[in-house]
């Protein structure tokens, strides 16, 4: 495992030394040209290029709670992704990305017709327009793991078509799409578990002070929803800890409409950022009681509030992934500290009865988890990022969690990320 770390680090250092400004490599030409600045790229004329991307992540983990991986409890290759992305005549952009050595290998596979800023059309497989955190690129995540709410309650990727754009002088951004299902996050490999069928999703974001020059310029707020029908079965939505141990196994039947509602906001003044999100998923349970009547809805709630500070002074809104003074180029890179408090909880809407694990219980035995994360992110250069997180987790009903006799436990995670 140490060899993997060394290999990734050495590759990054080599890249840091080898890469030169694009202009110095090749002069502009109408002929196909190969360039390598941020990443390898083939330019096929004005507005047309294909970029080659790769991302490798290696995690080192320790936890008071038992880890779920069978093969390597201490280290885990979290991601090995290869992909291409590019543009065709500045009208169509596309992205194809695949996870290596994964059963569900294809990640983003889509094309976006973007000729008109106000009305763009995107089709293929991509993330449903729901949740700020879920739709943040891994490169720009403030923490090693996304929030519990985004990871388990947001839909994630699916096949579909979406219309989106910016209107009202780019103050308002909208996304509305129709998808085959309600995303990968709500699915498991367990054939007994059901996911949403055809799903409609929408998201509306507003930057009310976009045209202002004050610090409020970087304030953004939004709302989102999804709606889909779920056939009778156990839901794929579940509750897991940061290191993927189950604390809520929803062996409760659902049947009917699944509705998601999300509210999000972020503010990124200078080197600081403040981000928050609330997600609620409601699953109907029609005709599922022992008397064939409706049960109360199964409700999943999640929220988080997080804040960051770029200690080295970079503007958060501009991103820290390209440090002003990279390591080995006369600088230290970019350093950011972060903290996040969050909660994920599951329950049924009914009350007044003893909670039960019966799949047809009106009042289910729910559970919830509070998580506090402290993090440091070090962007060594545009390719290499090292993150360290200390995570404190507290489970309402420890008996359903990884440490039945202990509700509170700590985990430490370090991630090395190489992005090309």
């Amino acid at each position, binding site marked *: 495992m140490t060899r993997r770390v060394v290999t990734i680090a050495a590759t990054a250092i080599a890249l840091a030394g080898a890469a030169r400004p694009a202009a110095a490599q090749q002069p502009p030409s109408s002929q196909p040209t190969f360039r390598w600045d941020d990443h390898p790229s083939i330019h096929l004329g004005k507005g047309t290029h294909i970029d080659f991307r790769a991302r490798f992540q290696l995690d080192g983990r320790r936890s008071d709670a038992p880890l779920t991986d069978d093969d390597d409890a201490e280290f885990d290759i979290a991601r090995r992704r290869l992909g291409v992305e590019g543009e065709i005549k500045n009208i169509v952009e596309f992205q194809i990305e695949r996870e290596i050595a994964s059963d569900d290998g294809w990640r983003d596979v889509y094309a976006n017709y973007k000729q008109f800023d106000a009305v763009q059309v995107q089709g293929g497989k991509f993330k449903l327009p729901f949740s700020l955190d879920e739709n943040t690129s891994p490169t720009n995540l403030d923490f090693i793991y996304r929030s519990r709410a985004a990871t388990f309650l947001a839909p994630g990727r699916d096949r579909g078509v979406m219309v989106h754009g910016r209107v009202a002088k780019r103050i308002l951004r909208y996304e509305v799409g129709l998808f085959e299902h309600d995303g990968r996050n709500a699915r498991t490999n367990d054939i007994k578990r059901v996911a949403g069928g055809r799903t409609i999703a929408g998201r509306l974001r507003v930057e009310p002070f976009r045209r202002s020059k004050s610090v409020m310029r970087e304030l953004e707020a939004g709302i989102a929803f999804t709606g889909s029908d779920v056939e009778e079965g156990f839901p794929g939505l579940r509750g897991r800890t940061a290191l993927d141990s189950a604390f809520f196994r929803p062996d409760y039947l659902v049947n009917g409409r699944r509705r998601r509602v999300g509210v999000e906001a972020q503010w990124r003044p200078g080197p600081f950022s403040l981000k928050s999100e609330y997600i609620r998923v409601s699953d109907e349970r029609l005709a*599922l*009681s*022992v*008397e*064939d009547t409706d049960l109360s809805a199964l409700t999943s709630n999640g929220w988080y509030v997080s804040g960051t500070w770029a200690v080295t002074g970079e503007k958060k809104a501009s991103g820290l992934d390209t440090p002003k003074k990279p390591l080995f180029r006369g600088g230290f890179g970019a350093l950011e500290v972060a903290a996040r408090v969050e909660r994920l909880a599951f329950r049924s809407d009914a009350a007044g*009865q*003893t*909670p*039960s*694990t*019966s*799949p*047809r*219980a*009106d009042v289910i*035995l*729910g*559970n*919830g988890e*509070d998580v506090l994360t402290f993090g440091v992110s070090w962007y060594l250069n545009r390719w290499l990022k090292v993150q360290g997180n200390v995570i404190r987790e*507290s*489970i*309402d*009903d*420890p*008996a359903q969690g990884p440490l039945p006799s202990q*509700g*509170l436990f700590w985990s430490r995670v370090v991630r090395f990320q190489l992005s090309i």
Partner: protein
Amino acid sequence: MRRVLACAIGLAAAVMATAQPVDAQSADELFDAQTLHEIRLLINSKDLQLLRANFTENTYYPADLIWGGGGQRVRNVGVRSRGLGSRNGNKLGLRVDFDRYTTGQRFAGLASIVLDNLLQDPAMVRERVAMAFFNRVGVPAPLESFCRLFINNEYQGVYAIVEELEPAFAARTLGEDSGFLFEYHYVQSFHAEDLGDLSAYKPLFEPRNHEDDADAVLYGSIRDLFREANVDDGTWRERVEPFLDLTAFVRLIAAENFLAENDGILGYAGMNNFYLYRFAGTTRQQILPWDKDNTFLQTDFPIASRLDENVLTRRLLAYDDLRAAYLDTLDQCARSAVEDDWLVSEVARSAALIADAAHADTRKLFSNDEFDAGVAFLNEFAAQRPAFVATAVAAAR
């Protein structure tokens, strides 16, 4: 403050997760044999369809149980099909677990009950009368009463409510509940032979508690019992006594033979229909009766029936004092049966109690005429069996 809040939430969840017992009902009322009770089960129609279609499986389905006319409701119980020969998809034999989905939920102080479909007995009273007789003569046995069962408001027929052999039963009858309880499963003809290593006993003896203990802990004393029982060196009693309560065993086989049990310890196809309890911290074990639908076979059922076929009984009765105890118990059974005309009146009262409900039971396997004939035979058995046994005992002394 946050920590206090988290603790409070955790405590509240823990309290909520541990069910309060549904304790308006007492076990005495539940097993009141003077009353024909009423139990209603509510099962989702899809689950009921699956339960009937897959009655050979032990899959649990959620249900609510409603007790009696008062409508006392126990929510979120688990029900599954049960039985061996009595398993049936039309008249379901059911086990009801009150704590299957709700930790600690109890009804009448019990974690579970059996709803016996009485399918193999045309008279439908053998099971309950036999168990009552065992308890009367000092053999620990489950309490039983009769009920009319409705599923989703549809009449299912007459059932026996049977106390499940669980730790609460052990506490009531044996004075402790932390020992090891096993249900015997009929797999092959078994007459207490030495089957060899531990693994041979696993299919026969299903642990009903301490399930996660090591095989050596679970089955060691069972293996040792049958191994020692098959050693022939003149020290049989000294070898076996540490592993089996011989006095209780003698009482059980005597009571079973009095009742002309055809499918028990000395069954027609080997040992069957019993539980085994091992007392906590010891190797001493006791055998307990279960499922007595095949009692009352015939009035002149020999008192020495199949005693020679089983290793335990053959070797045990070679000892004069144990043989005398066996005959004494048979004699005591005969006297107890006629005392206050107990057996005759118990059969008659039980049959009368369920007669109308049994006649209305369209799911039973026997006709109403067969029911009436079955009851008539039992009346005859109850009247004649004590005298037959007393005479046979006197002759055997």
